[in-house]
């Protein structure tokens, strides 16, 4: 094995990894906000809004991220809407993960027993106040683990952006491949870098779970 080759090209791969992190953070922020909208829709009291939310969730979950990226990047320009490759990838991943994150939020809120809301209302809280001070803080702790797992999936999904030539880690690996004859070394390194990022998130998650334990009474 020829890891000297890797050493000389390490900066190139690190640039790719930086782009991967940028993609993942962009999608994470988009999905965190979008997920709130999706949860608000799917839990709405108005049936049409609920259907809209559920339809969005089903479409996003039942089509591949690759196709969604292609629709945005190759399809949208035919409608006169041209997005950069980076923007297409972040937007597509934000949209798809909004569906997953929205369902995580919903499950988190629904896992809080209705008696908690009742107790808050009985103390004279307004419904919105009960949501903010009593329900959301409890739900947030419960959604932390699935949210962290979703972020790991997002990190891995960023590799799909290489199909539209975003210069992220997988794309960097492919380019090195064209320049050299060390595919085995290159992709072992790339794989280890992804593994490192996933492991870092998993580790942070463990710390967060320890710092903000889920407490249940009764």
């Amino acid at each position, binding site marked *: 094995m020829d890891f000297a080759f890797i050493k000389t090209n390490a900066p190139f791969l690190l640039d790719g990894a930086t782009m991967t992190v940028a993609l993942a953070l962009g999608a994470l922020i988009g999905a965190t906000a979008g997920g709130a909208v999706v949860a608000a829709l799917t839990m709405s009291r108005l049936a049409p809004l609920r259907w809209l939310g559920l339809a969005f969730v089903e479409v996003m979950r039942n089509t591949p991220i690759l196709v969604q990226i292609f629709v945005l990047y190759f399809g949208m320009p035919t409608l006169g809407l041209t997005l950069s490759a980076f923007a297409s990838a972040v937007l597509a991943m934000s949209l798809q993960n909004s569906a997953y994150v929205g369902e995580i939020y919903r499950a988190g809120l629904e896992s809080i027993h209705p*008696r*908690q809301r*009742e*107790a*808050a*209302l*009985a*103390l*004279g*809280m*307004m*419904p919105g*106040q009960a949501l903010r*001070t*009593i329900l959301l*803080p*409890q739900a947030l*702790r419960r959604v932390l683990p699935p949210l962290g797992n979703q972020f790991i999936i997002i990190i891995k999904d960023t590799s799909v952006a290489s199909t539209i030539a975003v210069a992220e880690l997988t794309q960097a690996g492919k380019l090195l491949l064209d320049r050299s004859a060390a595919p085995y070394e290159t992709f072992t390194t790339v794989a280890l870098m992804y593994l490192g990022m996933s492991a870092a998130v998993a580790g942070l998650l463990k710390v967060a779970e320890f710092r903000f334990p889920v*407490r*249940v*009474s*009764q």
Partner: protein
Amino acid sequence: MSEPVSSEPVSRTTDTPLVVIDRVGKSFGRVEVLKDVSLTVAAGDVLSLIGPSGSGKTTLLRCVNYLESYERGLITIAGESVGVDIRPDGSRRRKADREIAALRAQVGMVFQHYNLFPHLDVLENLTVAPRRVRNEADAPVRERAMALLERVGLADKRNRYPSELSGGQQQRVAIARALTMQPRLLLLDEVTSALDPELVGEVLDVILSLAGDGITMMIVTHEMAFAREVSTSVAFMADGVLIEKGPPGAIFDAPRHERLCSFMQRYRSGHRL
């Protein structure tokens, strides 16, 4: 008691009752769970609601702070209607959330399953509502909360989380939480039903001492001996109907209505009600 719990001067002989329940009716679908129930509770009274499971006593209690809506009749607390406004033409309109919340802030409730907030420690469970609902300053609320924790014997647990307490301790915290809002009326819904038998006594002792201080209470309970000891009056309900109401002596020793008689008989022969 060292701390005034009710902000109102307590009087056992006011002419207008604090709570007036006037021909209240409610249905769940086709089932009529409350039929024309009328009751009054004067300030300082302790009213116990007894009756078999499914008699509607818990539903009635939950209507008093409008956790449960009702479709017929009217409940008023200190002259203010609960949950609905009745227009001059007789039509009903649900009050705004803000008005309903303001009323609930004056009515404390203790639940069968304690319903403490698991993410807050004991002291925060007591202070969250005065601070968030009434925007009270931190220091006086903490002081009041600590006095109440002292009173229910749990001052040393102030920094524990609910999950670290026994059921009886949690329920005592729940009582203190309700009192921190200085309610003019306290509703207690089967507060010992979820407790292990050996923990029931500590909770009932707290309630007895509150009654001694003249706090107005409505209590749904299956503990007959306790109801007899704590109450100024007892109401017996069955099938959504208020069957008989009177002083504890009359209800327990000289029941008139046939349903109450058979209920008492089963109770005395040791059936769990």
